[in-house]
């Protein structure tokens, strides 16, 4: 369930579930359960808890604590680019087979 947040006269953001579609499509797994450690403030949160600015040339996920960018996802013509330089660690649960 996506929640859209709009402060008066501000850029809207949605929660990290907005990344489930594009990331799931290329990686075949639900990455919203991934946990990211923000390189800015070093706190760890699930990707779903990040703030995603989606009205932009790409999807920009920011840490809700310090507002630094933790992930960027850009759909190019034939590829999807995932940039995680703003995250120190990306951890995923082991799939239960």
């Amino acid at each position, binding site marked *: 369930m996506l929640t859209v947040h709009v402060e008066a*006269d*501000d*850029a809207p*953001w949605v929660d990290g579930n907005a990344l489930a579609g594009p990331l799931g499509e290329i990686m075949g797994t639900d990455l919203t359960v991934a946990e990211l450690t923000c390189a800015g403030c070093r706190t760890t949160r699930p990707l779903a808890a990040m703030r995603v*600015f989606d*009205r*932009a*040339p*790409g999807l*920009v996920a*920011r840490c809700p604590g310090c*507002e630094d*960018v933790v992930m*960027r996802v*850009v759909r*190019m*013509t*034939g*590829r999807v*680019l995932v*940039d995680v330089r703003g995250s120190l660690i990306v951890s995923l649960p082991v799939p239960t087979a």
Partner: protein
Amino acid sequence: MAVITRGFGGRRRDDADLPPGQYRTDDFPVLSAGPTPRIDLDEWEFAVVTETGERSTWSWAEFTALPADEPTVDIHCVTRWSKFGTSWRGVSVDTLLADVDTAAEYVVAHSYGGYTTNIPLEGLLDGQAWVAYEFDGEPLAPVHGGPARLLVPHLYFWKSAKWLRALELRLDDEPGFWETAGYHNDGDPWREQRYLED
């Protein structure tokens, strides 16, 4: 080519004026990769920094006292919308660099809020770019980049950095926010340079 004349004598703008892959909108969509910074005009400062570290700075009062232009230009967003005939007021980059001594070939635009974008210096000179602080006769709204934004209409609009804080002159090219995330380094809409791979 069909030319349709309007009552005011201008040629009606049509798809021939659109770069490839673009559609026309009369809205002004707000695109933003982050929260909108709020900058008090008392604290606002704009800087030009050369490759040797020399800084020229302007306060808001100093900046808005500079000779200004009122360009009317078409703008083209990489997300495929184009908007014709947008009216701005701003200071040309030529004016801002008139007294700056530099051998730089590249510029990085820095924004309040941390955004960056890179442009070759020659793409900003000769009346091709402005630091704009009014849109449609009104102070530039924060969501559109106010107090002041870069305006480089001949490139995709992500190069027209909102909330501009500084122009950094460099000897080498330094890719910016979108240029390091899959977008084209040059961003010429007429050559449809959207992505790294284009």
